Every structure is written in C-alpha cells, then in structure tokens.
C-alpha cells in the first residue's frame, strides 16, 4: 500500500525534526532538553557499554562519562550525523578505554590479524527447537545471550554490537573503530557465526543434527 510508507516517512521526519530541535535547545544550554535526550538514549548507551565492556561498574562509568562529554562537546556537534550516532561514537570510545585499562597487561587490539576461515567456526548444524523467545523467560534468555556475547573477543563483540544491535552502518562502524570496511565485514561475519554456534548448542532440536562441514 503506497500510502503507508509515505505516512511512515512523514512520521519519521517529524520524530527526526523533533530531535533536531531538542538537540538545538540543548546546545543553547537548555537543561530540560538535554535531560530529554538522556531519557531517550540512556538505556541504549548503558546496554552498549555493558555489552562491550562486559563489566557493570565500567558500564556505569561509561554511561555517565558519555553524557557528560556529550554535554561538554555539544557546541561542536554539527548535526552532520544523527545525534545518536554521535553519542554512540563517544560511548564506544569510552568503552574501549575502559577495556584497555582493565586489560592493561594485554593490549585490546581491534585490528589483530584473523586468519581462521568461516568453515572452522561452523560445527553445529542443527535447526532450533521452536522459538527461543517462547521457550525461555525474558531473564533466562537475556542471561543466555549475555553469556554468548561475553565469550566473544572484544574485536568481534564490539563490531557485532555496533552493526547488529545498534544498527550502525558498516561505514559508520569502520569510522568509529578505525578499521577498514573489509575488516568490519570480516569481523562481523565471524562474530555472527561464533554467536550462532554458541546459541545453536543451546537452542537446537535434540537428535536433529545434520552432517557438519568437514
């Protein structure tokens, strides 16, 4: 139905222009407008920080530092990107700094060489038993997904979180992490396959395994 996308676009434009006004007011020092921006994005920033740092204390610091830095640097926000993309960039930097600090004995590298091929990641080839969202309670499912993402190396989970959870583009992700487009794509594929592997072990229909790749 052609009218639907048009209506959606109009609604989307309204939301976007509403946010532009909010950002503009916040830039001029309107505390209420900045609080509204915090309320809008605090959950997502905190979730992203937890997923990247895998540490509650660090994530709390990242949340706070992200909004403090955002307020401080708001005058330099040009509006060329969306406000949330700009905010994400700050949150990612803060999260990576926390990771590096915590692992001061081991450098957290986002561009280390990855030579494994995709086949070696794919071992479990089995359909899932129904829908996990229906089989598990919210809390239980959340714990399973947290544990799976926690087991990924920082390079993989950061790219996965930005691309597949926060829905940043490949280009935005590459720019935020200082990686090439090709590096983002290869890390994302490996992250997706590793998570798929871990979740399939839990969610697979028992006794239904098909031959794996040799």
């Amino acid at each position, binding site marked *: 139905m052609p009218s639907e996308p048009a209506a959606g676009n109009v609604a989307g434009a309204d939301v976007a222009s509403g946010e532009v006004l909010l950002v503009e007011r916040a830039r001029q020092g309107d*505390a209420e407008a900045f609080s509204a921006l915090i309320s809008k994005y*605090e959950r997502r920033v*905190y*979730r992203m920080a937890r997923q990247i740092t895998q540490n509650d204390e660090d994530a709390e610091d990242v*949340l706070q530092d992200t909004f*403090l830095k955002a307020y401080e640097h708001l005058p330099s926000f040009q509006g060329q990107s969306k406000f949330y993309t700009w905010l994400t960039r700050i949150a990612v930097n803060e999260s990576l700094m926390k990771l590096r600090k915590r692992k001061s004995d081991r450098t957290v590298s986002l561009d280390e060489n990855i030579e494994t091929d*995709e*086949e070696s990641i794919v071992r479990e080839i089995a359909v899932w038993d129904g829908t996990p969202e229906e089989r598990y309670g919210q809390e239980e499912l959340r714990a399973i997904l947290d544990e799976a993402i926690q087991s990924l190396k920082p390079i993989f989970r950061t790219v996965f979180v930005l691309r597949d959870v926060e829905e940043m583009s490949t280009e935005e992700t590459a720019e935020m992490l200082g990686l090439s487009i090709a590096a983002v794509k290869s890390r994302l*594929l490996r992250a997706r396959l590793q998570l798929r592997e871990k979740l399939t072990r839990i969610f697979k229909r028992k006794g239904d395994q098909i031959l794996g790749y040799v």
Partner: protein
Amino acid sequence: MVTCKDFLRELGEYLDESTDPELRAELDRHINECPNCWVVLDTTKKTINIYKGLEAQPLPERLRARLMEAVAKKIGSASNGHDC
C-alpha cells in the same frame, strides 16, 4: 558453481543484501539444494534477530539518579562559568 565454502564466505554480504543480483541468485540456488547451508543461514538470521529484538532494559533507579546528579552538576558548573 557455488560451494559451501563460497556460501560461507559470502554469507555476510548475503545477509546484508549487498551481493550483486547474479551472485545472489547463485547463492539462493545453493541454499535450496544444500540443507547444511540452509540451516546455517536460518540460524544465523535467528541469531541476529534475537539480539536485535531484545529491548534495552530500564536503568536501575540508583544508576539513573547518579547520572542525573552528575549531569545537573555539570550543567550547573557550566552555567556558573558563563556567568563569570
């Protein structure tokens, strides 16, 4: 002819719908004929969707209070700075 190895290599682009139409048609043909690759595609899509579908939870009240207090302090000091 597309092999399972080719399919896995192209899976990322396929999922992001950025393969060219000709290659996509070949990959589609492979998926229809190869149960292993069909399952890998299906479970990878479900993996992405399950993370995407998980809503961000509300902040614990204590954390929200700490955040708002820090921001209020920052805004207060910034406006005091302007006044000087």
